[in-house]
């Protein structure tokens, strides 16, 4: 793959149209963006304002999973393919306890008016799974000996709200389970649409995919 | 006795060492390191700010210079922590000297803004320097085979210190004690008196024979070097470093707030400020809510500049004077 343009930005960049324009000038087929929330939102707006002829846009954009940004950006998200951890697609319901957990979380957020992610899909299941695995390991080992707990976690497979998890040699998951989703069919700024299936189709991993990738501009408007 | 203070310093260093041998829980060294690092930063800031009246807003830039000198050295030569700290001190000291030269016409707020600008420029440059990780940062894992004295230093079974946290804590504690000694020495020296004169009236000082430029350059260099030494172990402590964390404005505000709370006229001020504020921040962010540590700095700073403008030390002196009269 040939890289035609590569650039960094700094966190206080107020306007991202120059960077997108400079990228467009190199006529890329795909634009890969690795950004933090401010940059993610700025680039999504720039994509709406300047547009692009690239066929695929997205990648590692932190922030587009947040309830606040999703609602704020609304239809501007259409066509972007981005990483995610947990979305309300039917294939995600395979995991025992996942939907119950999210229901519980959302009602708690509402009841206690917590200033946190109103939807609770992005990190909640994984945060829960983190502690769940640690808890399972502590119970299995029967003590708080760190070395023994570490060994148990490395050697065993766990069942959790995010499915079966086994750690590989390098400490990462043996089988990567990060999702790649594509935003589509978003018509307004209502947050609740992101709690229903269809707005974020799972492209990868293949075994739980709910749609195929479509070109960026075919999903705009 | 003439050397009472020096003897107390030595005893404190021995005391730190004993602590590392007696206390088993690494967690205390983990938070102790931060408080001690702030003590060095506050003490260093106070040499220029408290004695000389020049407010440095760019403390984080000097700390980060130390930190990134260490990272570059690890990548280049794979040297140990002590060497990293010496090198960090040298480079940050040179930066201090350069800052002094560049800003020699600037006073008051202008100096403060120039130091802030300098820190931001440095941050931008570091964010583009891929050798030390660039904007994305880099991981620094404690080395398996340390150190100046070989494996003797850190080793679970045979070393002087059982783990890296203890070693970092001991080093930072020693640096803190040496910094306080240096600050106290300066305070009671010709340099300290000259800086005080500069703070009160730079023109009068110059006309009374004080070589203001030379003293300012010495102060920026020493202050910068201390901050660099404090910053050098940062990457090893965090095991990861990126420009955002190394250049964080929180270092700058703490370096200002701590001396202001303790009192800027004496070496003891920054020490008291760092102990109080540093401990309060650690406690609140670990056991209550992480945002609270910043709220504490803010509220305490505002309250202190309003009701106790000379800090805790000034407050004590005043109440003692009051009772005498």
């Amino acid at each position, binding site marked *: 793959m040939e890289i035609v343009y590569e650039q960094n930005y700094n966190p206080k960049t107020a306007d991202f149209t120059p960077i997108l324009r400079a990228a467009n000038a190199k006529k890329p087929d795909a634009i890969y963006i690795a950004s933090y929330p401010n940059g993610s939102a700025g680039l999504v707006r720039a994509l709406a304002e300047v547009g692009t002829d690239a066929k695929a846009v997205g990648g590692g954009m932190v922030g587009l999973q947040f309830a606040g940004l999703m609602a704020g950006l609304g239809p501007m998200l259409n066509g972007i393919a981005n990483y995610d951890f947990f979305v309300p697609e039917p294939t995600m319901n395979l995991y025992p306890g996942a939907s119950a957990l999210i229901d519980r979380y959302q009602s708690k957020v509402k009841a206690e008016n917590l200033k946190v992610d109103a939807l609770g899909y992005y990190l909640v299941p994984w945060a829960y799974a983190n502690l769940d695995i640690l808890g399972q390991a502590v119970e299995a080992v029967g003590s708080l000996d760190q070395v023994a707990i570490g060994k148990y976690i490395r050697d065993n497979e766990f069942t959790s709200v995010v499915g079966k998890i086994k750690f590989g040699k390098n400490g990462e998951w043996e089988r990567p389970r990060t999702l790649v989703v594509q935003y589509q069919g978003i018509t307004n700024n209502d947050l609740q649409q992101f709690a229903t299936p269809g707005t974020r189709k799972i492209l990868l991993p293949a075994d739980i995919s709910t749609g195929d990738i479509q070109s960026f501009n075919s999903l705009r408007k | 006795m003439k050397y009472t203070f020096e003897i107390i310093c030595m005893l404190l260093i021995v005391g730190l060492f004993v602590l590392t041998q007696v206390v088993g829980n690494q967690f205390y060294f983990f938070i102790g390191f931060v408080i001690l690092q702030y003590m060095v930063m506050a003490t260093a800031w106070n040499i220029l700010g408290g004695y000389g009246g020049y407010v440095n807003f760019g403390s984080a830039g000097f700390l980060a210079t130390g930190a990134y000198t260490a990272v570059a050295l690890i990548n280049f030569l794979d040297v140990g922590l002590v060497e990293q700290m010496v090198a960090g001190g040298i480079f940050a000291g040179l930066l201090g000297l350069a800052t002094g030269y560049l800003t020699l016409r600037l006073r008051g707020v202008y100096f403060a803004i120039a130091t802030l600008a300098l820190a931001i420029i440095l941050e931008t440059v570091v964010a583009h320097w891929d050798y030390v990780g660039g904007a994305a940062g880099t991981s620094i894992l404690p080395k398996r085979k340390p150190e100046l004295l070989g494996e003797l230093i850190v080793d679970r079974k045979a070393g002087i210190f059982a783990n890296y946290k203890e070693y970092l804590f001991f080093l930072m504690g020693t640096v803190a004690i040496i910094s306080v000694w240096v600050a106290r020495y300066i305070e009671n020296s*010709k340099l300290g*008196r*000259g800086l*005080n*004169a500069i*703070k*009160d*009236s730079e*023109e*009068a*000082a*110059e*006309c*009374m*024979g*004080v*070589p*203001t*430029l030379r003293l300012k350059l010495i102060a920026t260099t020493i202050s910068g070097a201390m901050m660099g030494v404090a910053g050098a172990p940062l990457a090893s402590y965090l095991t990861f470093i990126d420009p955002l964390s190394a250049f964080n404005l929180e270092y700058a505000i703490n370096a200002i707030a701590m001396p202001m709370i303790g009192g800027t*006229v004496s070496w003891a001020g920054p020490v008291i400020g760092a102990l109080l504020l540093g401990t309060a921040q650690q406690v609140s962010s670990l056991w209550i809510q992480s945002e609270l540590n910043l709220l504490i700095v803010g509220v305490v700073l505002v309250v202190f500049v309003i009701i106790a403008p000379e800090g805790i030390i000034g407050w004590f002196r005043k109440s003692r004077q009051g009772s005498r009269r």
Partner: protein
Amino acid sequence: MSDALLKIDSISKHFGGFTALSNVTTEVAPGERFGLIGPNGSGKTTMINCVSGLLRNEEGKIIFDGKDVTDLKPHKRTGAGIARSFQIPRPFHTMTVIENLMIPAEFVGHHRGEKGDDRAEAMEILETMGMAEKADDTTLDLTQIELRKLELARAMAAKPKLLISDEAMAGLTGQEVDEVIDILFKMNERGITIIMIEHIMRAVMRFSQRIICLDAGQLIAEGTPEEIVKNKDVERAYLGSTDG
């Protein structure tokens, strides 16, 4: 007067387009009591700032004690023997009165290789000013006249050959003015040359042996107090300034 202590040789100073001093030449003899007068904005303060080194004159030379000091920094000139007071007192306000005096004693005296008891010498200066009791007070507790005296005392602690007194009497009562004049006479008796910049004519006329008058950055008159009083240019300069 080839053996002058201070030679000001055709100096000029500009601020942007404004000419503050224009080609001023004069000399001060050793031991002389020298008066410098002129209306507001005539360049008096600019001139002594050039002599003490706080400002650099763009043209001309300043020779002190036989040495060219034009390019020296103020603290070097103080070391060479020029000391000054400030019109608006600038005490080291975080220090006590005696500590104020010990700054020049330490930085100038030690620089010259003198090793004396700084504190005792400072006390002696304070005694001649009648301020010995205030030695350990902070400067914030001082009255206006005490602040003026401190300015002079601190300058004296630098052991100068030439003392420049910049409007040390402005705003003082008649009795206080006399007190300051007495102090200046006492210093002069010790062999210190004194330049007095002053608005209070009575003081300048009584004190000075010789006076120069500046107007709009130019030297317009030079002579004994009697000559200056009669000088038409001086009269015009002062009357002109009171109109505006």
